[in-house]
């Protein structure tokens, strides 16, 4: 039953993306209201899915790679809904939708959900550690999206011949500011997540520890470079995209190493 909620959420994200693409291409894009509603509907369906899953697991539903991917996609939408409209980042939903759609499809079509309800260790520090870390990834995911939007808008401005999308994208300065704030939100959440990890009485694989700390350090360095104006906003945007892809790629490895140690 809960799978249908996930499919419904995925379809909402697909609709959000397809509608905005169509509206921008045909010049009918007026506001992001429909896009926002579709994202909110998808978020509600995904929340229902996670709630039902949590009831069955009797814990926060972040115990398998399948659940981790869904929780990550949920975190990205949550942060988007919290900050996107506040910063008038009207088209951010259109850029967020394909990413969360892609994550949901991976979770749905891959054989990751073979063991839906594993026995889990009930530990509030563990749940906090994983949940905060995944929400941090959500923040980094949105920083990556703001980075993509920055690069698109910069290209439009530098070309001297802006297209229709140019008029719907937020000002490039706002995108730069949003990118910085999202990186900071992600970094704070990741720091808290890692700190919660230190309260666990569980052994940690060296490789997992190194990868987690490495990602934390890279984001720390990016923020430092940003603060000292050592890198141009364009390079900062590109870095937030590259590092998020790197973090996303290492996520399954971190999850597998965690499961191996728990066993």
């Amino acid at each position: 039953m809960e799978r249908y909620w996930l499919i419904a959420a995925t379809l909402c994200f697909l609709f959000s993306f397809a509608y905005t693409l169509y509206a921008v291409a045909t010049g009918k894009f007026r506001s992001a209201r429909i896009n926002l509603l579709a994202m909110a509907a998808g978020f509600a369906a995904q929340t229902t899915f996670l709630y039902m899953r949590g009831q069955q697991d009797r814990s926060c539903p972040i115990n398998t790679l399948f659940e981790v991917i869904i929780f990550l996609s949920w975190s990205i939408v949550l942060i988007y809904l919290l900050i996107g409209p506040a910063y008038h980042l009207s088209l951010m939903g259109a850029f967020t939708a394909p990413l969360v759609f892609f994550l949901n499809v991976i979770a749905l079509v891959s054989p990751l959900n073979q063991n839906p309800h594993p026995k889990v260790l009930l530990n509030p520090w563990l749940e906090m550690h994983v949940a905060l870390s995944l929400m941090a990834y959500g923040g980094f995911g949105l920083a990556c999206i703001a980075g993509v939007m920055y690069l698109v808008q910069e290209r439009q401005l530098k070309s001297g011949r802006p297209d229709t999308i140019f008029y719907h994208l937020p000002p490039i300065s706002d995108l730069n500011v949003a990118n910085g704030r999202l990186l900071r939100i992600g970094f704070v959440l990741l720091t808290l997540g890692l700190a919660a990890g230190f309260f666990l009485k569980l052994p940690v694989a060296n490789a997992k520890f190194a990868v987690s700390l490495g990602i934390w350090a890279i984001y720390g360095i990016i923020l430092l470079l940003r603060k000292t104006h050592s890198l141009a906003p364009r390079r900062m945007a590109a870095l937030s995209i590259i590092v998020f892809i790197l973090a996303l790629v290492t996520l399954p490895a971190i999850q597998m190493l965690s499961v191996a140690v728990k066993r």
Partner: protein
Amino acid sequence: MNILCAGISHHTADVDIREKLAVPDHHMDAVLREVREIEGLSEAVVLSTCNRVEFYAASICPARAFEGLEKYLFNRTGIRAPLYFHDSPQSIRHLFRVASGIDSMVVGETEILGQVKQAYASAHGRGATARHLNKLFQHAFRAAKYVRTKTRITSGPVSVGSVAVDLAEKIFGQLTEKKVMILGAGDTSERTARSLQSRGVKSIIVSNRTFERAAALAEEIGGMAIHYENWHNIFPEVDILISSTSAPHPILTREKLAPLIKARDDRPLFIIDLAVPRDAEPELNELDSVFLYDIDSLQQIATQSLAVRQQEVLRCEQLVEEHVTEFLAWMRKLHGGYPAGAES
């Protein structure tokens, strides 16, 4: 009852005729009263803008009303203006087109709707309108809003000044805290600076080889003049640079600006080069956070927007037609099933 429209516009008359027919605010009272005294004419609205002077009226006898109006205008101005006369339904269609911006000099401009609203309010306030024109103008406002929402008739900027403002807002967002520097006190740079000023830029600094010209322009636009030799010192604080000097070679070179840009802490710089020959080296656009636009690229964007608007005109006409049909249906219902003008 018929709806009539008589007048001149930028399509039919030059400015020297339009200015003679124009009805200033302080004459509006008298003109509305005199027009309604014309035989066969009841309600009246006068729309007088820089691009058109039009009289809208309700009448039971169009031929006599047109004749009377023509005579009245000749007596008032002393000239035989090339007036156009529209009876229903063409008059209704014309007003809806005017209010929607389809008939404007710059297609899709939005100022006209405000002017139509003001003309109606002025006539209504003086008791010059009744059931027919009240309904007609309310319908015109609805039609104009509908056309703007459903089409791209107002999309994109269509003048160098508005393109510059749009680009500046897409670079900086709010312009209220931004500083503008004008290099070379030309007409286009002054107009562009004024457009930016209308969006609330914080301050404008003017620099010119002849200091007196810089000072005169600065005084006119409420800015500050500086000596040409000193513009480099102010440059790191500037967000928008408008250049239109008559220098025969580029004065804004990559070599000169690159070190100054480093001191700006990644703040974007928008360079508007209005000079021919150009003041800024094209290579400046390759620098991080620098956005360079010359006169050609600004004009190209304006032309592009205008082309988009022109393409939309056909769709707008179709939407206007729907509203004309709706209004005519209301007229028929009001007059017991007779088409407009059929009953006496």
